[in-house]
């Protein structure tokens, strides 16, 4: 079943589009991060816009914080609450796997071949995890190349130890896999490509809005408001101590959310008529 699901992914154009957008989006985002932001801060560009410089504040490319940002495999480190292009593409990848069979009737062939529907979902989960892991490694390679280029072509020195880099990138790969599986579970749960896309869009846009609103009302960001998928993915990739939740705890919480949504999708798939 896993081999069949991998073949399905490989033979659908939208899978390749999602992969290309994730890689291209991350490359553009991270290059802008390490080139444009320091240039604005230094006044090399937008020299006549002091307000922009003031809002941006000092940018230290040698700081561990900045270099962790360059290593962010989802390209979402530009500012708190930002949504990276790669994040959208990774969620879309899972969503495509979860909904394509329902859209074109392939789920009937799968159910005829494997009447135990949890086996069908298991095949999709495994295939999505494999492809997302490969994508995550490619994204990590892009991020690492951007960081090393920053060090090679600017006065900045490498502030991170190899173990810190490996840990950050490894956690990034896990976050990519979890977000793809979240997209898959939402897709299988809702079946319709448009409905699932709307829900994912609401999560992408709604999470930062909710956090901003909570922060505005309470003056701080309570822990519960950080136990949301995108925040957990970001915290999972952040430097230890930078986020309210420690990275491994954040990834564990994200795993639990993915597990709950996947379990709901499994129940729905078993109970529904096809």
């Amino acid at each position, binding site marked *: 079943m896993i081999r069949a699901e991998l073949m399905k992914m490989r033979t659908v154009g939208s899978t390749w589009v999602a992969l290309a957008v994730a890689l291209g989006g991350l490359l553009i985002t991270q290059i802008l991060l390490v080139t444009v932001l320091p240039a604005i801060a230094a006044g090399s560009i937008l020299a006549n816009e002091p307000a922009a410089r003031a809002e941006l504040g000092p940018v230290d490319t040698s700081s561990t914080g900045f270099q962790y940002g360059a290593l962010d495999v989802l390209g979402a480190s530009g500012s708190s609450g930002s949504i990276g292009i790669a994040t959208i593409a990774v969620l879309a990848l899972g969503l495509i796997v979860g909904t394509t069979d329902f859209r074109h009737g392939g789920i009937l062939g799968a159910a*005829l071949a494997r009447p135990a529907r949890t086996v069908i979902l298991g095949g999709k989960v495994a295939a999505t995890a494999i492809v997302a892991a490969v994508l995550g490694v490619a994204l990590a390679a892009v991020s690492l190349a951007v960081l090393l280029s920053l060090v090679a072509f600017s006065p900045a020195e490498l502030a991170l130890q190899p173990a810190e880099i490996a840990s950050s990138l490894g956690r990034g790969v896990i976050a990519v896999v979890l977000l793809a599986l979240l997209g898959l579970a939402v897709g299988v749960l809702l079946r319709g490509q448009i409905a699932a896309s709307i829900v994912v869009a609401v999560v992408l846009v709604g999470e930062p809005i909710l956090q901003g609103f909570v922060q505005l009302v309470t003056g701080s960001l309570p822990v519960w408001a950080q136990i949301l998928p995108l925040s957990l993915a970001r915290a999972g990739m952040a430097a230890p101590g930078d986020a309210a939740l420690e990275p491994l705890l954040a990834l564990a919480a994200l795993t639990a959310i993915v597990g709950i949504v996947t379990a709901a999708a499994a129940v729905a798939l078993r109970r529904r008529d096809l």
Partner: protein
Amino acid sequence: MNTHDTPAIAVHGLHKAYGRTVAVDEVSFTVARGRVLGLLGPNGAGKTTSMRMLLGLASIDRGQASIHGRPYAQLADPVGTVGAVLDAGGLHPGRTARQHLRIAAAMAGVDAARVDPLLDDAGLGQSADRAIRTYSLGMRQRVALATALVGDPSVLVLDEPANGLDPAGTRWLRTMLRGFAAGGGAVLLSSHILAEVAQVADEVVVVARGRVVGSGRVDDLTAHHGGDLEAFYLDLTAENAEVR
């Protein structure tokens, strides 16, 4: 359970309702090995729902449906036992016929080497690497039928398989189904093309508004209609017009 006395397909007292709408009401029939049974009825009569319940795709409110004595979900080798065509085969328009069949073979655990002969038999050898979006309806039906045969099954369940087929395709389907039955296979076939059913089916079951309103051997049923299945069908469904 899988003895020679057990019908290849057995449906008994099937009942299915969606809310207050009864889709299938006490439908019963059997298909023996080596026989072709035509399931006839107007649109919305419950033919497709009955087939989906037989194949475990829709839940059964009441009654039983089995293949070689077992519910579909309990078959040890589902694709090696039953080949099915539903909804024009669930074809992704961006895939080629060859990719589609290879995926079906992988899902069934069948050797991919079986794909090329099936494509050739279905007359798709020359166009197997074109995207399905460029296919005519008849070509899509041929892909769906080839997919149904991937597991070399002994039972076929086909919902409107002749839709869109040109005369050559229709003849190919007829020859294939008769050959399949002659080899001991059992076929359950729903169709609106009554002339085609008359040529290929040994028996028919006519359903209207979810209920069986007539069944038997084609020759017996049409004896009072000059052997014309269409005349028999139209008379029978006109009698049941109130329930349509």
